[in-house]
Protein backbone atom coordinates (compact mmCIF):
# COMPACT_ATOMS: atom_id res chain seq x y z
CA UNK A 1 0.00 0.00 0.00
CA UNK A 2 1.31 3.45 -0.89
CA UNK A 3 2.04 5.99 1.85
CA UNK A 4 -0.53 8.63 2.78
CA UNK A 5 1.96 11.39 1.83
CA UNK A 6 1.93 10.21 -1.79
CA UNK A 7 -1.85 9.86 -1.88
CA UNK A 8 -2.47 13.24 -0.21
CA UNK A 9 -1.00 15.19 -3.13
CA UNK A 10 -3.12 13.39 -5.71
CA UNK A 11 -6.39 13.00 -3.79
CA UNK A 12 -8.15 15.91 -5.47
CA UNK A 13 -7.18 14.62 -8.92
CA UNK A 14 -8.32 11.08 -8.05
CA UNK A 15 -11.74 12.28 -6.81
CA UNK A 16 -12.34 14.59 -9.78
CA UNK A 17 -11.28 11.90 -12.25
CA UNK A 18 -13.52 9.27 -10.64
CA UNK A 19 -16.51 11.59 -10.88
CA UNK A 20 -15.67 12.45 -14.48
CA UNK A 21 -15.55 8.78 -15.45
CA UNK A 22 -18.52 7.56 -13.41
CA UNK A 23 -20.96 10.48 -13.35
CA UNK A 24 -22.29 10.48 -9.80
CA UNK A 25 -20.90 8.58 -6.82
CA UNK A 26 -21.16 8.57 -3.05
CA UNK A 27 -18.22 8.57 -0.64
CA UNK A 28 -18.10 4.90 0.30
CA UNK A 29 -18.47 3.89 -3.35
CA UNK A 30 -15.42 6.03 -4.23
CA UNK A 31 -13.21 4.43 -1.58
CA UNK A 32 -14.22 0.94 -2.76
CA UNK A 33 -13.65 1.73 -6.43
CA UNK A 34 -10.19 3.20 -5.79
CA UNK A 35 -9.34 0.17 -3.65
CA UNK A 36 -10.45 -2.26 -6.38
CA UNK A 37 -8.88 -0.39 -9.32
CA UNK A 38 -5.52 -0.07 -7.55
CA UNK A 39 -5.51 -3.71 -6.34
CA UNK A 40 -5.70 -2.36 -2.79
CA UNK A 41 -2.46 -0.36 -3.24
CA UNK A 42 -4.33 2.93 -2.77
CA UNK A 43 -6.75 3.21 0.12
CA UNK A 44 -8.47 6.52 0.60
CA UNK A 45 -9.33 7.12 4.22
CA UNK A 46 -12.61 8.74 5.24
CA UNK A 47 -10.55 11.29 7.16
CA UNK A 48 -9.03 12.54 3.91
CA UNK A 49 -11.96 11.94 1.56
CA UNK A 50 -14.82 13.86 3.21
CA UNK A 51 -12.96 17.09 4.06
CA UNK A 52 -11.79 17.19 0.42
CA UNK A 53 -15.26 16.40 -1.00
CA UNK A 54 -16.87 19.09 1.17
CA UNK A 55 -14.17 21.58 0.19
CA UNK A 56 -14.73 20.83 -3.52
CA UNK A 57 -18.46 21.31 -2.97
CA UNK A 58 -17.86 24.66 -1.21
CA UNK A 59 -15.72 25.82 -4.14
CA UNK A 60 -18.28 24.79 -6.74
CA UNK A 61 -16.31 21.97 -8.38
CA UNK A 62 -18.82 19.32 -7.32
CA UNK A 63 -22.53 19.37 -6.66
CA UNK A 64 -24.54 17.02 -4.47
CA UNK A 65 -27.81 15.17 -4.70
CA UNK A 66 -29.29 13.98 -1.42
CA UNK A 67 -31.05 10.65 -1.19
CA UNK A 68 -32.74 9.49 2.02
CA UNK A 69 -32.14 5.86 2.92
CA UNK A 70 -34.41 5.35 5.92
CA UNK A 71 -33.03 7.49 8.75
CA UNK A 72 -29.76 8.27 7.03
CA UNK A 73 -28.79 10.63 4.28
CA UNK A 74 -26.64 9.68 1.31
CA UNK A 75 -24.97 12.37 -0.76
CA UNK A 76 -24.23 11.63 -4.41
CA UNK A 77 -21.45 13.80 -5.76
CA UNK A 78 -21.13 14.85 -9.41
CA UNK A 79 -18.99 17.34 -11.32
CA UNK A 80 -20.19 20.83 -12.17
CA UNK A 81 -19.07 22.38 -15.52
CA UNK A 82 -16.35 24.18 -13.50
CA UNK A 83 -15.36 20.84 -11.93
CA UNK A 84 -15.03 19.23 -15.37
CA UNK A 85 -12.53 21.92 -16.38
CA UNK A 86 -10.66 21.54 -13.07
CA UNK A 87 -10.58 17.76 -13.55
CA UNK A 88 -9.03 18.06 -17.01
CA UNK A 89 -6.48 20.59 -15.76
CA UNK A 90 -5.52 18.44 -12.77
CA UNK A 91 -5.21 15.32 -14.95
CA UNK A 92 -2.94 17.11 -17.42
CA UNK A 93 -0.83 18.39 -14.52
CA UNK A 94 -0.56 14.92 -12.96
CA UNK A 95 0.30 13.24 -16.29
CA UNK A 96 3.06 15.79 -16.95
CA UNK A 97 4.34 15.35 -13.38
CA UNK A 98 4.45 11.54 -13.70
CA UNK A 99 6.28 11.84 -17.01
CA UNK A 100 8.84 14.21 -15.46
CA UNK A 101 9.30 11.91 -12.47
CA UNK A 102 9.74 8.94 -14.84
CA UNK A 103 12.39 10.79 -16.83
CA UNK A 104 14.12 11.95 -13.66
CA UNK A 105 14.34 8.45 -12.22
CA UNK A 106 15.39 7.02 -15.59
CA UNK A 107 18.19 9.58 -15.98
CA UNK A 108 19.38 9.03 -12.39
CA UNK A 109 19.36 5.27 -12.88
CA UNK A 110 21.24 5.56 -16.18
CA UNK A 111 23.80 7.85 -14.56
CA UNK A 112 24.41 5.30 -11.80
CA UNK A 113 24.28 2.34 -14.19
CA UNK A 114 21.12 0.79 -12.71
CA UNK A 115 18.87 -1.31 -14.92
CA UNK A 116 15.49 0.35 -15.62
Amino acid at each position, binding site marked *: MYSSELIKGTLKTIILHLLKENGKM*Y*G*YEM*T*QMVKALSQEKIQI*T*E*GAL*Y*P*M*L*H*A*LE*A*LGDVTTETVY*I*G*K*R*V*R*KYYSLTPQGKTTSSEKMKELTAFLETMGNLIKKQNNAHGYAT
Partner: protein
Amino acid sequence: MAMLHEKDIHWIKQLILEHGITDQALVESLLDHLCCMVENELTTSGDWQLFVENEIKKMHPIALHHLQTEKEIFIQQLKNNNMNKIVSNTLMGSVALLLTGVIFKIFHWPGASFIIVLGCGIGTVTSLISALHHNKEMQSVKFILITLLAASFSMGCLFKIQHWPFANLLMLVGVLGTAFLFVPISLYQLKSSNQLNAQNGLMHFLLFLTGTMTFMLFDLSMM
Protein backbone atom coordinates in the same frame (compact mmCIF):
# COMPACT_ATOMS: atom_id res chain seq x y z
CA MET B 1 -24.58 -8.09 7.45
CA ALA B 2 -28.21 -7.06 6.75
CA MET B 3 -29.41 -3.44 6.64
CA LEU B 4 -29.02 -1.56 9.90
CA HIS B 5 -32.15 -0.69 11.87
CA GLU B 6 -33.15 2.84 12.82
CA LYS B 7 -31.95 2.44 16.42
CA ASP B 8 -28.55 1.16 15.17
CA ILE B 9 -28.18 4.17 12.90
CA HIS B 10 -29.10 6.45 15.81
CA TRP B 11 -26.43 4.74 17.96
CA ILE B 12 -23.74 5.34 15.30
CA LYS B 13 -24.82 8.97 14.92
CA GLN B 14 -24.59 9.51 18.68
CA LEU B 15 -21.10 7.99 18.67
CA ILE B 16 -19.98 10.41 15.94
CA LEU B 17 -21.43 13.34 17.90
CA GLU B 18 -19.71 12.12 21.09
CA HIS B 19 -16.40 12.34 19.21
CA GLY B 20 -16.93 16.09 18.87
CA ILE B 21 -18.15 16.37 15.27
CA THR B 22 -20.58 19.28 15.12
CA ASP B 23 -20.55 19.94 11.38
CA GLN B 24 -23.90 18.54 10.18
CA ALA B 25 -22.68 17.72 6.66
CA LEU B 26 -19.68 15.84 8.05
CA VAL B 27 -21.87 13.94 10.54
CA GLU B 28 -24.16 12.80 7.70
CA SER B 29 -21.27 11.76 5.45
CA LEU B 30 -19.52 9.79 8.18
CA LEU B 31 -22.79 8.19 9.30
CA ASP B 32 -23.60 6.89 5.82
CA HIS B 33 -19.99 5.75 5.35
CA LEU B 34 -19.94 3.80 8.62
CA CYS B 35 -23.35 2.25 7.88
CA CYS B 36 -22.09 1.14 4.44
CA MET B 37 -18.99 -0.37 6.04
CA VAL B 38 -21.05 -2.33 8.56
CA GLU B 39 -23.49 -3.55 5.92
CA ASN B 40 -20.85 -4.52 3.34
CA GLU B 41 -17.69 -5.46 5.21
CA LEU B 42 -18.84 -7.12 8.41
CA THR B 43 -19.61 -10.81 8.64
CA THR B 44 -22.90 -11.83 10.30
CA SER B 45 -21.09 -13.19 13.33
CA GLY B 46 -19.09 -9.99 13.99
CA ASP B 47 -19.81 -7.50 16.78
CA TRP B 48 -20.89 -4.51 14.69
CA GLN B 49 -20.69 -1.98 17.53
CA LEU B 50 -17.06 -2.90 18.26
CA PHE B 51 -16.38 -2.76 14.51
CA VAL B 52 -17.77 0.81 14.29
CA GLU B 53 -15.78 1.96 17.32
CA ASN B 54 -12.57 0.58 15.78
CA GLU B 55 -13.30 2.18 12.40
CA ILE B 56 -13.89 5.57 14.03
CA LYS B 57 -10.51 5.27 15.76
CA LYS B 58 -8.90 4.57 12.37
CA MET B 59 -10.51 7.60 10.71
CA HIS B 60 -8.07 10.10 12.21
CA PRO B 61 -4.64 9.46 13.78
CA ILE B 62 -5.29 11.95 16.64
CA ALA B 63 -9.01 12.46 17.19
CA LEU B 64 -12.07 12.45 14.95
CA HIS B 65 -13.02 16.08 15.63
CA HIS B 66 -9.80 17.19 13.92
CA LEU B 67 -11.54 16.34 10.64
CA GLN B 68 -13.59 19.53 10.98
CA THR B 69 -10.47 21.69 11.28
CA GLU B 70 -8.90 19.87 8.33
CA LYS B 71 -12.01 20.52 6.26
CA GLU B 72 -11.75 24.27 6.98
CA ILE B 73 -8.04 24.24 6.13
CA PHE B 74 -8.75 22.44 2.83
CA ILE B 75 -11.39 25.00 1.89
CA GLN B 76 -9.06 27.88 2.77
CA GLN B 77 -6.17 26.37 0.81
CA LEU B 78 -8.29 25.79 -2.29
CA LYS B 79 -9.76 29.30 -2.03
CA ASN B 80 -6.24 30.75 -1.75
CA ASN B 81 -5.12 28.82 -4.84
CA ASN B 82 -8.07 30.19 -6.79
CA MET B 83 -7.42 33.72 -5.47
CA ASN B 84 -3.73 33.52 -6.45
CA LYS B 85 -4.69 32.44 -9.98
CA ILE B 86 -7.14 35.35 -10.34
CA VAL B 87 -4.62 37.88 -8.94
CA SER B 88 -1.83 36.60 -11.17
CA ASN B 89 -4.02 36.71 -14.33
CA THR B 90 -5.32 40.19 -13.49
CA LEU B 91 -1.81 41.51 -12.85
CA MET B 92 -0.63 40.07 -16.17
CA GLY B 93 -3.58 41.75 -17.85
CA SER B 94 -2.76 45.10 -16.24
CA VAL B 95 0.89 44.84 -17.34
CA ALA B 96 -0.26 44.05 -20.90
CA LEU B 97 -2.55 47.12 -20.79
CA LEU B 98 0.26 49.27 -19.46
CA LEU B 99 2.64 48.16 -22.22
CA THR B 100 -0.05 48.74 -24.85
CA GLY B 101 -0.59 52.23 -23.42
CA VAL B 102 3.14 52.96 -23.57
CA ILE B 103 3.26 51.87 -27.25
CA PHE B 104 0.26 54.11 -27.97
CA LYS B 105 2.01 56.98 -26.18
CA ILE B 106 5.24 56.50 -28.17
CA PHE B 107 3.35 56.62 -31.47
CA HIS B 108 1.09 59.46 -30.26
CA TRP B 109 -2.02 57.38 -30.98
CA PRO B 110 -5.30 58.39 -29.37
CA GLY B 111 -6.43 56.71 -26.12
CA ALA B 112 -2.89 56.17 -24.77
CA SER B 113 -3.55 58.00 -21.49
CA PHE B 114 -6.77 56.08 -20.88
CA ILE B 115 -5.09 52.68 -21.44
CA ILE B 116 -2.14 53.58 -19.15
CA VAL B 117 -4.46 54.81 -16.37
CA LEU B 118 -6.62 51.69 -16.74
CA GLY B 119 -3.59 49.35 -16.61
CA CYS B 120 -2.06 51.11 -13.57
CA GLY B 121 -5.42 51.34 -11.82
CA ILE B 122 -6.26 47.63 -12.25
CA GLY B 123 -2.74 46.62 -11.15
CA THR B 124 -2.82 48.80 -8.04
CA VAL B 125 -6.33 47.77 -6.96
CA THR B 126 -5.51 44.06 -7.51
CA SER B 127 -2.29 44.36 -5.49
CA LEU B 128 -4.13 46.10 -2.65
CA ILE B 129 -6.92 43.48 -2.55
CA SER B 130 -4.31 40.72 -2.64
CA ALA B 131 -2.36 42.37 0.20
CA LEU B 132 -5.48 42.70 2.35
CA HIS B 133 -6.40 39.06 1.65
CA HIS B 134 -2.93 37.76 2.56
CA ASN B 135 -2.77 39.96 5.62
CA LYS B 136 -5.54 37.88 7.25
CA GLU B 137 -3.26 34.85 7.21
CA MET B 138 0.11 36.45 7.79
CA GLN B 139 -1.10 38.83 10.51
CA SER B 140 1.60 41.19 9.30
CA VAL B 141 1.36 44.95 8.77
CA LYS B 142 4.66 44.80 6.92
CA PHE B 143 3.24 43.29 3.74
CA ILE B 144 0.28 45.63 3.52
CA LEU B 145 2.47 48.66 4.29
CA ILE B 146 4.94 48.00 1.47
CA THR B 147 2.04 47.38 -0.94
CA LEU B 148 0.43 50.71 -0.01
CA LEU B 149 3.75 52.53 -0.36
CA ALA B 150 4.49 50.85 -3.70
CA ALA B 151 0.97 51.74 -4.85
CA SER B 152 1.55 55.36 -3.82
CA PHE B 153 4.87 55.50 -5.69
CA SER B 154 3.54 53.84 -8.86
CA MET B 155 0.46 56.10 -8.88
CA GLY B 156 2.83 59.06 -8.42
CA CYS B 157 4.78 57.92 -11.51
CA LEU B 158 1.52 57.61 -13.43
CA PHE B 159 0.42 61.11 -12.36
CA LYS B 160 3.83 62.40 -13.43
CA ILE B 161 3.48 60.87 -16.92
CA GLN B 162 -0.01 62.33 -17.22
CA HIS B 163 1.13 65.75 -15.88
CA TRP B 164 -1.55 65.60 -13.21
CA PRO B 165 -1.26 67.47 -9.89
CA PHE B 166 0.09 65.85 -6.67
CA ALA B 167 2.38 63.49 -8.61
CA ASN B 168 5.43 64.52 -6.56
CA LEU B 169 3.51 64.23 -3.31
CA LEU B 170 2.43 60.66 -4.07
CA MET B 171 5.95 59.66 -5.09
CA LEU B 172 7.38 61.34 -2.00
CA VAL B 173 5.00 59.45 0.30
CA GLY B 174 6.08 56.18 -1.34
CA VAL B 175 9.80 56.94 -1.08
CA LEU B 176 9.79 58.43 2.43
CA GLY B 177 7.44 55.76 3.76
CA THR B 178 9.67 53.00 2.45
CA ALA B 179 12.88 54.51 3.85
CA PHE B 180 11.68 55.77 7.23
CA LEU B 181 8.65 53.56 8.03
CA PHE B 182 8.88 50.24 6.21
CA VAL B 183 12.63 49.64 6.67
CA PRO B 184 12.65 50.19 10.49
CA ILE B 185 9.46 48.10 11.01
CA SER B 186 10.76 45.30 8.81
CA LEU B 187 14.18 45.30 10.50
CA TYR B 188 12.54 45.24 13.95
CA GLN B 189 10.34 42.26 12.95
CA LEU B 190 13.30 40.38 11.48
CA LYS B 191 15.40 41.08 14.59
CA SER B 192 12.69 39.96 17.01
CA SER B 193 12.09 36.73 15.08
CA ASN B 194 15.86 36.04 14.82
CA GLN B 195 15.69 36.10 11.02
CA LEU B 196 17.99 39.07 10.49
CA ASN B 197 21.06 38.08 8.48
CA ALA B 198 23.68 39.73 6.28
CA GLN B 199 21.65 39.24 3.10
CA ASN B 200 18.34 40.74 4.20
CA GLY B 201 20.23 43.37 6.27
CA LEU B 202 22.02 44.54 3.10
CA MET B 203 18.72 44.52 1.18
CA HIS B 204 17.15 46.81 3.78
CA PHE B 205 20.19 49.10 3.79
CA LEU B 206 20.01 49.42 -0.01
CA LEU B 207 16.28 50.11 0.20
CA PHE B 208 16.91 52.84 2.79
CA LEU B 209 19.74 54.31 0.68
CA THR B 210 17.59 54.32 -2.48
CA GLY B 211 14.74 55.95 -0.59
CA THR B 212 16.83 58.71 0.95
CA MET B 213 18.76 59.39 -2.27
CA THR B 214 15.54 59.64 -4.28
CA PHE B 215 14.18 62.00 -1.61
CA MET B 216 17.27 64.18 -1.97
CA LEU B 217 16.64 64.41 -5.73
CA PHE B 218 13.15 65.77 -5.20
CA ASP B 219 12.63 69.44 -5.72
CA LEU B 220 10.23 70.12 -2.88
CA SER B 221 9.29 73.50 -4.30
CA MET B 222 7.60 71.69 -7.21
CA MET B 223 5.08 70.00 -4.95
